[in-house]
Structure formats: structure tokens, C-alpha cells
């Protein structure tokens, strides 16, 4: 048994243990902490599977962002008494059976693969050069399957609208009720003044470098959103009102520019979301920059929650 195999087996066992612990955790804080730990380990597993782009996204979304969103959701449920929503035994049994079937299907697919494994990877690598990109993942996201990426960004905005729709009528257009750290804390202020500059540099770096090596708009945007949330939690900046012009402008600028370039593809190139020859990389970089801003603002507002204070107070 080589050391690599031992490491992988150990990782698999550890992540199973954390997963099981998260399912059986007593209270919501423990469960969320378990889930965040699960996300951190999953990032390492993606690295072991030679998928650094996915590992970056998992480390960004699966650890920090999802933890924050789940904690916010759990906090909103606490006054309602969240212990009373256990599903019936039959329901849980059915869920277990379905999960088991999915696991069995995945196991069969991996243990008994077909003779020639269908893969588009060689085709992607052959056709990557004309676009000027060096990262095949960026190529798939912005050149070959650009429509999916565009729709994903729209889905993100729809999710934000869903969160905002939880506001009362009185509070619509007002300030989200992000829970600021209650007591004035010099330590947290220090962290919120020191970490965000580093985070902004890392976020911009992630977005910029994603054309050639693992990275990209999503990872960079998430780091920026986390830094913005940190500044708001420490009370150094006010949470913006949701009807502010600049906020809404930054929210939609990414998908709008993406859509505009896609529509321009009708005129300048062959079809929707086609890039004119030689201009692919600058256009893609422009789209990525705009998307990074939009994703950062969207995820930040998702973390801030629905509006609770009306704009007139």
C-alpha cells in the first residue's frame, strides 16, 4: 500500500465520519460547524482528484459562504422552535434508500467503467488554442458552454431575489438585518481592517489568473464577498439598502455585460455567445471582471439576509 493510497483512504474515512456526525448533530451550530469542516475536507479531496478549480470553489463556497448562510438561516429559525420539524420514520427511510441507490450507481460507474470512457477532454484541449485561454476549465465555462455560465449567474440573482422576498412589506427597500457583532470589539475591528486588503488582492488575483491557471470569477468573487461581509459584521461599514442604485447596478452588471457580448455575437461572429476571432480573450476577461463584481455583491447580500429595517427609519 503506497502512502498516497493510505492518505486517500484516511481522507475518505475522515470525511465519512464528519458527514455522519453532521447528520446526527444535536443542535444547529454543531451541525453547521460539521458541514463547514466537511467542506474543507472536500476541498482536499478535490485536490487529490486533480481538480484544483473545483477545490478552489469548494474552499470558497463550501467552507466560508455556506457556513455563514446556514448560520443565518438557523438563527432565523430559532425563535420558531426548530426542533419540531423531524420527518416521519417512513420519510427518512425513503430518503436513505434513495441516497443509497445514488451511491450504488456512482460506485458501479466507477468500479465497472465502460470499455472506452467517453470524454470530451481531448477535444477541449485541441480547440482551446484559438480562444487564447490556457485554462481548459475557463475554456469550457466561457467558450464551449458559455450559455450555462450565463444562466448560472442569472440563477444567483434569482436566489437573491428569493431571499429578499422574505422581507415584510414595510421593510421592502430597506436595510438587511445582518447581525453585527454585538459588543464593540477592538479585536474584530483589527481583523476587519487587516484581512480585507489581503482578501481583495487575493480575489482580484484569482479572477485575473483564472484565464490560464485554476481560478476564475466565481472564486475571486466569493473571496471579495467574504471580505465585504467581514467588514459589515465588524460594524466598520453600514449594510447598504437594497434599493440603492449602485447596489443594483453592480448586481446586474455581470450578467448584463455577458448577455450584451453574447448578443453582439450575432452581429460580430456566427451566433449567440460566439466571439469574433482574435478578440476572444479580451472579451472573456472583461466578462470575468464584471462577473466577479456581480458575484461578490450578490453573495455579500445573500449573506446579509432579507431587509428588516424600512428605508424610512
Amino acid at each position, binding site marked *: 500500500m503506497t502512502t498516497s493510497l493510505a492518505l486517500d483512504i484516511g481522507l475518505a474515512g475522515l470525511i465519512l465520519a464528519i458527514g455522519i456526525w453532521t447528520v446526527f448533530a444535536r443542535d444547529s451550530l454543531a451541525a453547521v460547524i460539521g458541514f463547514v469542516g466537511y467542506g474543507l475536507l472536500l476541498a482536499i479531496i478535490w485536490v487529490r482528484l486533480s481538480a484544483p478549480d473545483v477545490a478552489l470553489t469548494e474552499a470558497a463556497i463550501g467552507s466560508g459562504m455556506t457556513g455563514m448562510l446556514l448560520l443565518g438561516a438557523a438563527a432565523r429559525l430559532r425563535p420558531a422552535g426548530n426542533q419540531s420539524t423531524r420527518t416521519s420514520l417512513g420519510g427518512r427511510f425513503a430518503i436513505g434508500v434513495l441516497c443509497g441507490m445514488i451511491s450504488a450507481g456512482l460506485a458501479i460507474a466507477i468500479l465497472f467503467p465502460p470499455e472506452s470512457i467517453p470524454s470530451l477532454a481531448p477535444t477541449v484541449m485541441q480547440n482551446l488554442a484559438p480562444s487564447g485561454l490556457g485554462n481548459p476549465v475557463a475554456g469550457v465555462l466561457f467558450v464551449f458552454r458559455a450559455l450555462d455560465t450565463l444562466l448560472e449567474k442569472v440563477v444567483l440573482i434569482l436566489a437573491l431575489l428569493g431571499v429578499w422576498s422574505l422581507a415584510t412589506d414595510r421593510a421592502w427597500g430597506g436595510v438587511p438585518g445582518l447581525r453585527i457583532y454585538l459588543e464593540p*470589539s477592538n479585536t474584530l475591528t483589527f481583523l476587519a481592517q487587516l484581512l480585507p486588503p489581503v482578501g481583495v488582492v487575493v480575489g482580484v488575483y484569482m479572477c485575473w489568473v483564472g484565464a490560464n491557471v485554476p481560478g476564475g470569477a466565481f472564486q475571486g468573487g466569493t473571496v471579495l464577498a467574504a471580505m465585504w461581509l467581514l467588514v459589515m459584521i465588524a460594524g466598520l461599514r453600514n449594510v447598504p439598502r437594497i434599493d440603492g442604485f449602485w447596489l443594483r447596478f453592480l448586481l446586474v452588471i455581470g450578467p448584463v455585460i455577458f448577455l450584451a457580448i453574447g448578443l453582439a455575437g450575432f452581429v460580430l461572429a456566427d451566433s449567440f455567445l460566439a466571439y469574433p476571432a482574435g478578440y476572444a480573450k479580451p472579451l472573456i476577461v472583461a466578462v470575468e471582471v464584471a462577473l466577479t463584481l456581480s458575484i461578490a455583491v450578490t453573495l455579500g447580500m445573500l449573506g446579509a439576509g432579507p431587509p428588516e429595517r424600512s428605508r424610512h427609519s
Partner: protein
Amino acid sequence: MNILLNIFTVLAVVAGAFFFLAGTVGLLRFPDTLTRLHAITKADNLGLGLIILGLLPLTSGPIQALKMISVWLLVQLSGAIVTQLIARAVRLRGLQE
């Protein structure tokens, strides 16, 4: 030269791993939350620093080495501050055994 660098790497990485072991042993054996915080922050950060020191000769260039050192500095910084925050939370909720 190569042999010397390899020996240096092995020694530094072993020392780093030892400090990680010390940190975890402290986490399991120390009597209360605040002392356990000491264990996982100080010992683990020192272990990380030693491991990074040992990996420096093996990096593919100065940029990667600088990145690793900045990761260590970032972990130091955030670790120190987050530990203070956790300790304050512990004090607010009362020490639990």
C-alpha cells in the same frame, strides 16, 4: 548540496509534524477550553511554519516560496485574532468543561 538540502527538509518537516502532534495532544489533554485554544493555535502555527521552512528548498521558484510564506503569515495573523474572539466568546458563555 542536494543531500544537505534534503536533510534540512526532512528535519524541518519532522519537527513541524512533531509540533502538530503536540498541538493535538494538548487539545485532547488540556483541562479547559482556553488552554486548549493555546494548544491548537500556537503549536499548530509553529508546526506549519516549520513545515513551510522545510518545503522552501523544494519549491519551483521564488514566487511559490513567497506565496507559501505569505500563507503562513496570514494563518498566524488570523489565528491570533480569531483565538482572541473565541476566548471572548468562551468568557461570555461561561467556561464549560
